[in-house]
């Protein structure tokens, strides 16, 4: 979210925050690598094929999965389709606006999509119906309901939880045509990617920045890891820099903290 800043106030606020961080403290009392309380509710939109509402502190995101059949992309004729979209609703923040997706919303959707896609969370090969003609297409739409920092992680967790609990029709193939049965089966989920976002404020890097911290942050970096402890996606953001050492340390933190969050997501989506 690009907020309209009051430069004088922002400068004072940031100076205070940097001072606080120098003594290892954050505005809300968390430790540097501590994320806010994560709550995950699933099945919140019964009409969707899968859904989840995630609260990360006061940030709230709802993801809904819709599944249909479609035509595969020409270059992947035997793979299903997975699309992640996000809208930062105007009701979510005084700075969000109605209209076509902003640059921020497009980046948000693409970074979340990348984490899901690159982890191979969903086995797209299992979504093939008739090669080159018909595949299963999964759309995950995310509604950001309340903005309080770190949309990347909250949105990612919502998408992962929605996909983990999504059910789709089983299809049978007759004469090169896919026919839907009444049987419902799980979406073929293989992995549980976990996104972790850091903010650099001054020379300190903190996990899961809240809105106040984002208003003062210089740089943002998201690192997504998968079950094997591998890194599968990353995105640096904001118009500033990060040192190589900070990148590597963030990767370590992401692998470590990611494990706990993954367990929590798996628990919430059993």
């Amino acid at each position, binding site marked *: 979210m690009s907020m309209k800043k009051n430069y004088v106030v922002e400068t004072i606020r940031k100076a205070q925050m940097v001072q606080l961080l120098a003594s290892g403290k954050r505005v809300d009392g968390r430790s540097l690598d501590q994320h806010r309380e994560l709550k995950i509710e699933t099945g919140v939109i*019964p009409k969707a094929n899968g859904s989840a509402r995630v609260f990360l502190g006061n940030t709230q995101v709802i993801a809904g999965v*819709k599944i249909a059949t479609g035509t595969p992309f020409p270059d992947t004729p035997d793979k299903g389709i997975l699309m992640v979209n996000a809208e930062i609703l*105007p009701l979510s923040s005084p700075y969000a606006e109605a209209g076509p997706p902003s640059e921020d919303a497009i980046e948000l959707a693409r970074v979340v999509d990348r984490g899901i896609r690159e982890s191979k969370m969903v086995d797209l090969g299992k979504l093939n119906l008739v090669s080159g003609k018909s595949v299963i297409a999964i*759309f995950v739409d995310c509604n950001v309901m309340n903005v309080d920092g770190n949309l990347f992680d909250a949105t990612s967790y919502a998408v992962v939880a929605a996909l983990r609990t999504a059910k789709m029709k089983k299809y049978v193939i007759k004469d090169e045509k896919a026919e839907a049965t009444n049987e419902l089966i799980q979406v073929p989920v293989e992995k549980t990617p976990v996104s972790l976002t850091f903010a650099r404020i001054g020379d300190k890097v903190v996990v899961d920045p809240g809105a106040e911290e984002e208003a003062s942050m210089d740089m943002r970096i998201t690192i997504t890891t998968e079950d094997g402890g591998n890194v599968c996606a990353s995105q640096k953001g904001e118009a500033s820099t990060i040192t190589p050492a900070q990148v590597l340390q963030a990767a370590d933190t992401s692998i470590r903290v990611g494990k706990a969050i993954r367990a929590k997501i798996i628990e919430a989506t059993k």
Partner: protein
Amino acid sequence: MEGQEVGEGKTKLIDESGKRLDGRKWDELRPISIQVGLMKNADGSAYIEWGKNKIMAAVYGPKEVHPKHQVLPDRALLRCRYHMAPFSVDERKNPAPSRREIEISKVIREALVPAVIVEDYPRTAIEVWVEVLQSDGGSRVAGITAASLALADAGINMRDLVVGCSCGIINNQVVADLDDTEDKEGSGDMPVAIMPNLGLVSLLQVDGIYSREQFQKAFELAIAKGKQVNALQRAALNTRFFGGEAKTTQVEEVAE
């Protein structure tokens, strides 16, 4: 004779004993629960579940008007967007606003403005965002019901709440509060919004074929049911501002 050949009669939506597909009587509302003030950033908000509708309304303002040429010198500019989440309906909806959403945004705005004392906020904007997370029949009246609570929650001066209910015709019979199936298979839908204390109608749309008698019956039923929902609105505001359990109020609990 006039009005006789009305009705579609294809799907049996109401049986001989007057029971509808979901077990309701002809004049019975679906379950409704309302919570006010859930959203953290918004100046005011209300969440309504009405049948399978799940709708969040939030209000920002009064705030500065951008672009400036839209400023109204003697009153607030009320903006309104009714929007359906892509996952809110059976087939995924394109997130870009449809012509239907543009029209509904307009009639919702025109239903809310009469209740807002816009003269108290000259040269400002008040924004009302209605997001349909899951849609059943009657989402626009449910949205209005929530939106007027969100305005009240934001502390905006109001003459009255606005509350709506949609009535209509299934199998040539007037019924209250159509759900999705009744809306699609039935032969008429009539969303009505009222300012209940002032006894005024601020939204009226009619679809379908009604004899003069059916028109009046459906219209008056919608007003009566709107008053019933208004009791839920007041209870939800009460919970919000004067404590008591935050549990959701069910329509069954309300005395008519």
